[in-house]
Structures are given as C-alpha cells and as structure tokens.
C-alpha cells in the first residue's frame, strides 16, 4: 500500500491537514476540516469542504480556488476512506496519508532529525532539523477517531522536539483519551529528569516509552548508535522515566554485532531494569543504513536461535514480559512462538513463495517488503499452526 504520492495540481498555499469524507450529505459544521472524496462524476459538489479529492477523470466541475482546492487524486490513493487523514502540500503536490481510521495501528513520524546515527537505522536522519511533521500531527490529532486503538510517535528522535513533544502527548490524552500511545525514543535527552517529570505530569492513561539498548555495555551500544555517551544517557533516561512512574519498554535489534551477548544483555535487564514493562527482540529491517551496512549487521536468525532462546528464558524466569518482532515463525524455535508478534505493519508486510501453503501464515508477521532478498535460510512452510 502506497502512503504518499503526488497530485498533478500545484498552487500556492501552506501545507494543511484534512480528514477524508465520502458523504455528500455531511453535516455542514464538520466540512470545514474535511476533504470530500468524490468517486464518481457528480452534478453539483456540496459546498463548504476544506478541499475536494476527485477520482474521476473530470474532477474539475467545481472551480479550483486556494480556499477550496479541487485535487485530482492519484490512483494509488484511491483506497482512501472515511475518517482517514491526509497531509496536503500544495506547492509540491505531495499528498501523504497520515492516519488510517481502519488500521489497528497508526504511526506518526514527528521529526526526521536525530541525535544518534545508528548503523542499522531504517529511516536515516536528514541533516536539516526543522520540519513541520510535529505541527501537522498536532493538527491531525483532533480529527482522529476517538476509538483509535493505538498510536505510535516515532522519528528521527521525537525528544528533539522538547516542549512540543510534551504538548503532543497532552493533546493525545485530551483528544484521544482511550488510545494507547507508544513513543519510540533513544531516551538520551531524558537524562534530564525534568523531561521525564514533564511527561509524567500529563498523566496519560496508557503511555509506553520504547527505548533501544543494543548492548549491556556502553562501548558496544555507543558503537552501534555511533555516539559516545549514548548508552549512559539512555540508561539515565530509562531510570528517570521509571522514577516518574512511566512505563518503559526496552528494544534491541539483533545484529551480527550483538547476537552472542543476548544472554548477558537479558541478565543485565533483569538485574538493572526489572521494572521494564516489555523487552522486545527485533529482527533487522534491511533498509536505510541497515542495507548499506548489511555485511556488518546481517546474521541469519537460524544462527542465533540458541542465544535468543537463552535470553528470552532468563527474562521470563524473572517475570519480565518479552516480545519477538520481525521474525518469521519458521526462523525461531517453536518454544519461542508464543513471544512472536505480528509486528510488521500491514502495508509493509509480504509473504514469499516458500510460504505457500504454510499452516502458520495467519499467525506470522511475514516479511518486510524490503527483505525479499535478505531472509533466513530457515524459511519454509510449516505444517502445524501455533497452539
């Protein structure tokens, strides 16, 4: 599924956020923040919408103006439906789907900037730090469905936004009080206790901060994230979050650089961070830097099964919840299946030829579209689904 594309129309206006509606009889007061999606030709467009998306060839019956733009939708975005939210950038014609109402899980990139430079970054940071991602998300939050189950804030590094991040969390709590909020941060700036306190003060009812630790010793972690002192900052951040009563999840991407020390890592977490609400072992997503550093990073899951099993076992015996992400079930030991989650977003996830007829396919996370060429030799169709 394509999440962003371009419209053919360009005009001079600042970027804006609209919620999609297909209802020609939409109550007027709601129209001002919505775009009407017209799937077929229509005699008279109802007035009052912020914008109009046209899917039919002749979508220009209504005169296009800056205030009520008529935007020809590229075919790749025809799937849009009621309640979805789109960012429109008039000067470049960029249309980006920010939110899908029917998705179980929505993820928002708050900034492209980052203070780390991880060897396996799937979303390499851009040099120019200023972008408007966070402001647009802030605009979009009140437009989202109040029953949205789960939202993730990601980046770049969201904490670089400082106060702005705190305000976005508050906005999530105020407009979407029933939505779980997951924030993926490297935790380094949370070494300042006041940052954790500011987040805690919001009293968000269901907030988890996911913080990566790629090793239990500082020099190994610092090497992987290419930043001296990063491990210490992250650890202080984690302790600060815990001290403020916030929930912390520890995340580790398994690579050739750290697979042998998974057991040591698990023991470290059990002893030092026993308050962790979850520990996630993630498979490598071979895009971005991970792709350019593949020779350094790639290790076949079939070759670290023993290490992963030992690490999971240590955490489990200490009653710390564990999850395994991005691992096809056939690449990990059956006794670990109950920890595996269908972690790959539905628009990224695919299956390959070898999965044909697999009994566990409906329980499996599948592959990143990007990992078709880089996958475990253990991939095979299995006869029995998980019990």
């Amino acid at each position, binding site marked *: 599924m394509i999440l962003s594309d371009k419209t053919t129309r360009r005009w001079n206006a600042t970027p804006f956020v609209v919620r999609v509606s297909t209802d020609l009889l939409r109550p007027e007061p709601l129209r001002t923040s919505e775009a009407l999606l017209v799937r077929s030709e229509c005699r008279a467009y109802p007035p009052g919408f912020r914008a109009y998306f046209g899917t039919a060839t002749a979508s220009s019956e209504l005169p296009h103006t800056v205030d009520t733009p008529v935007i020809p939708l590229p075919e790749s975005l025809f799937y849009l439906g009621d309640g979805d939210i789109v960012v429109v950038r008039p000067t470049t014609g960029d249309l980006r789907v920010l939110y899908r109402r029917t998705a179980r899980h929505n993820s928002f990139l708050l900034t492209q900037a980052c203070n780390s*430079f991880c*060897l396996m970054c799937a979303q390499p940071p851009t040099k120019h730090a200023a972008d408007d991602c966070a402001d647009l998300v802030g605009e979009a939050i009140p437009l989202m469905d109040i029953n949205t189950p789960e939202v993730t804030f990601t980046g770049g590094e969201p904490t670089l936004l400082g106060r702005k991040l705190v305000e976005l969390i508050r906005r999530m709590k105020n407009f979407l009080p029933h939505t779980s909020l997951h924030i993926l941060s490297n935790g380094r700036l949370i070494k300042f206790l006041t940052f954790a306190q500011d987040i805690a003060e919001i009293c968000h009812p269901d907030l988890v901060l996911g913080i990566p630790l790629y*090793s*239990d*010793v*500082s*020099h*190994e972690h*610092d*090497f992987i994230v*290419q930043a*001296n*002192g990063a*491990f*210490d*900052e992250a*650890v*202080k951040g984690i*302790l600060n979050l815990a001290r403020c009563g916030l929930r912390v999840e520890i995340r580790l991407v398994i690579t*050739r*650089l*750290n697979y*042998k*020390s998974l057991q*040591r*890592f698990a*023991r*470290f977490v*059990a*002893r*030092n961070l*026993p308050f962790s609400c979850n520990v996630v072992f993630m498979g490598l997503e071979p895009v971005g830097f991970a792709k*350019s*550093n593949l*020779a*350094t990073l790639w290790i076949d899951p079939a070759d670290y099964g023993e290490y992963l099993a030992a690490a999971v*076992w*240590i955490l489990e*015996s*200490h*009653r710390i919840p564990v999850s395994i992400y991005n691992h096809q079930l056939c690449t990990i030991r059956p006794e670990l299946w109950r920890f595996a989650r269908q972690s790959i977003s539905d628009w990224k996830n695919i299956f390959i030829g070898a999965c044909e007829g697999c009994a566990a396919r409906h329980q499996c996370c599948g592959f990143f579209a990007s990992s078709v060429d880089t996958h475990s030799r253990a991939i095979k169709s299995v006869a029995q689904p998980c019990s």
Partner: protein
Amino acid sequence: MSASSDLRHSPFKPLAEFLPQIGSYSLLPFRFIKLDDSRYILTNFVGEYIVTDRENLARFVNKDLAPDSELYAQLKSRHFLTDSSHSAAFHLLATKYRTKQQHLSEFTGLHMFVPTLRCNNSCWYCQVSRKNSTAEGCDMTQAVAERGIEFMFNSPSTVLKLEFQGGEPLLRFDIVKYIVEKTRELCRTNGRAVNIVICSNLSLLSDEILDFCELHDLSFSTSLDGPRELHNVNRPSREFDSYERTCAGIVRIRERLGVERVSALMTTTRHSLSQPTEIVDEYLRQGLASIFLRPINPYGFASSPGIVTSYSTAEWLEFYKRALDYIIQLNVKGIRIREEYAALLLRRMLSPYGTGFVDLQSPAGIGISAVVFNHDGNVYPSDESRMLAEMGDQRFCIGNLLSDSYRGMMLSDTLIDSISQTMTECVPCCVDCGFQPYCGADPIRHYRLQGDIVGYKPTSEFCQRHLGLFRHIISILEEQSTASEVLMNWLQ
C-alpha cells in the same frame, strides 16, 4: 563484539573508536572466595556474581584485561568495573542497592502468635519446649491477644503476615478465631492486606475449622518429616498415629480449601540422613509441590545432650545435596516439586529484589522483619529467641504486651543492640566473605551455640552450612545444564 572492517568506506566510525583505553578501568567494590579448586566466585554488594579462574581474577585486579574481551564485558555489565564511557554505573548500582534493601522500609511484616504452648504431639526434637495437652497456665488470654493485634497494626508494613505458632494452635481454636476475626475486621477499615497461616500438626482439624478457614482465607503450614515410620519416630504422639493424622489433614485441606493452601516442611534428624529420596517421595505421595529441607535447630528438647551433635554439618549437607539432586531429576522428568531452601537462596543470588527471611539478611530480620507474641504476652524478635526463653534465657525478650508500648519495645536497647551487631557488611569474617551479599547473621543461634551474638565464624555451624549451600547451588548454575534451568524456574 567483533570489530567490523566493512565500515571503512562509510561515514561510520569503527568499534575501536569506542573501546575504552587498555588499563583505564576502575575496580568497583567486590569480594571473592574460592568456589572449588580451580574457580573463584566474585560478588559485589548488590548481589551480582561472576565465576572465573585465578589467572583471570589476577588479570582483572591488575587491570590487564583487554577491553574487547568477553570477561571485560561481563565484569562491566555486572558492575565489577567501570570505565570512562560508563558513568551511569553508579546510578544503576544505587538503584540496585535500593531495590535489594527495599524490604527494610516495609519494616515488620511477620507477626507470630502463640495461642498456647500445649501440644498433643511429643516430638523429641521439639524446639519450643512444648507442654502437655492438659498443662495449665500456658494459654494466651484475650487481653494479650488484643494487645498483640494492636501491636501488629502499629507496623507500617503494607502487607502483614499473621502466623499462629505453638504448641498446637488448634488446641485453642477459640483464640485463633478471635484474633482472625478481629484482624480481618481491622483490615477492612485499615485498608491493609493480611496473609494468615496456621502452623499445625493438623490432628485436630474439623469441618467447623475448615469452614472458618475458607471464610477467612487462611492457609496451613504443617510438618511432614518423611514416610510413616520416620515421621512417627520423629514426631510421636501418645494419643494418635501422628503420620496418619497429618496426612489425613493434608488431604482434607487440599480437597476443601485447595492445593495451594497447605504447605509442609521437614526437620532433619539423624534418622532422616539415610532417606533423602524416601522423604521426597513422601511429599509426592501427599501431592505437595514444595518441600523445605531444614536442619534441626539447637533449641528446646532438640538441645538435649547428644541430639544436636547427632550429625555434623557435613553430614547434613551431604543429605541435602542428595535430596536436592533427586528433586532436580524429578523436575527434569516434568514432575514439579520445589525445594524452598534452595529457592530462597536463589532469590538472594539472582533476583534484584530482597527477601525478608529473618536469618538471611543484613541486618538480621529480628524484630524488623518478624516478631513473636508468646502466650504470656512476652514479645520476642524471632521464634528462636522465644525458644531460648522457654529454656530459661530471657536475653532477647523486648517487653510484654500488657505492660510495654510498641515504641518502647521496638526501640529497646535489647533489640537495637542486637540488630546493630548483625550487619554482615562489618562483622569479622563476614566482611571479607565472598558470599556476604547472600548470607545473614542469625544472632540468636550464634548466641546460643557460641555465647556471642556475632559469633566466631570459623567454627560456626551456620557459616559452614551456608558456605556449602552457596557453593553447591552456584556450581549447578554454572554448569548451564538442565539442572540449572530447573533452579532458574524456581525464581518465578
């Protein structure tokens, strides 16, 4: 971690740029002791350990360890050393220390009531010097019970544990009932959780008692020393078949209240030494999923000449190892049974949390973890000090419920002086012992056997026993076999 040459032609820096300088690390406080002929165990004050050989120990201390070696990473990960890239080590150590000692802030949790000293068993090793079932003047009065409850609710502990000891508490079920009802009532208005356990030989169990236990959520702890013959030799009764009564009681509780509401422990006598597997099998026969293998305590009748010395610490350790080995084998076969002594020591070694076990903590838990209200209102800081008092030595009595205040007793010189001598961090011998973070002081036992609260460790039976236990359990863990997996399972 292996360095990666592939990164040469990229914007990324190689591992070498992040590695600490050779010899630049600092040692963090640690102790060490021989594990066996070839290995040493290193421990730090938050209870982390590492096993290594003498050569590597020397290399580590002399700062000759290579920063990219696995041992370097292990020592750094567990905070035996730190280097310039890791200032957070101190934050983590502080957090771990607070976590380990957190039980201290909870203060007294366990409150033991002795409704009567009378008992219908006549165990020859009775450590409390019980009285005959018809004896007079050794039952608790309602006034004493009431003051005991008051005392208990003075404790700041959020989770209270109330235990009925004896004698046989069910001989005075009316007092038990009074205390339970009153306590449950106070819990409701007080917002506190109380777990209640009756320590009983189960011989007097009745439907009325079981109904009451169901209503008030009570559990039982009983003594089961092994198969019929062994049990009846150790724990005879003039009135009934002791084994028969106890086992029937276990069955009734399991049926009526549930399997988790009755647990048992055994006391090792000279007769037990040759029957480790038979004893464990008896627990399986009774459907019990846990067993506590205890050595005899040198109090009461058990201190009569010839009884304590009837077996040595080495003999007991041998017995214990054989029993534990058998229990582990059972678990490997999928039969779930847990040995509680080992489970306790494992929690002390592997868990980041503390344990509130009176004899195995520093400072000792006397008074601050547990307190005993004797039938006559005398208050003791542990069950052992009550046992000592029944032998005529009131050395550790901290007051009487009827005449002394909570503050007066808990702040008495008797208690404070004793506790202050139980900090193994600064007790001679303990201070240098590699097992210090896992061990404790047992002041009453040392006073009883060596005439001194601190005691003389080289000849201390307590010390020998625990050194033996720690060495044995760590050896099993280090082998990383199915046996160590079984032990790890007991952490949960």
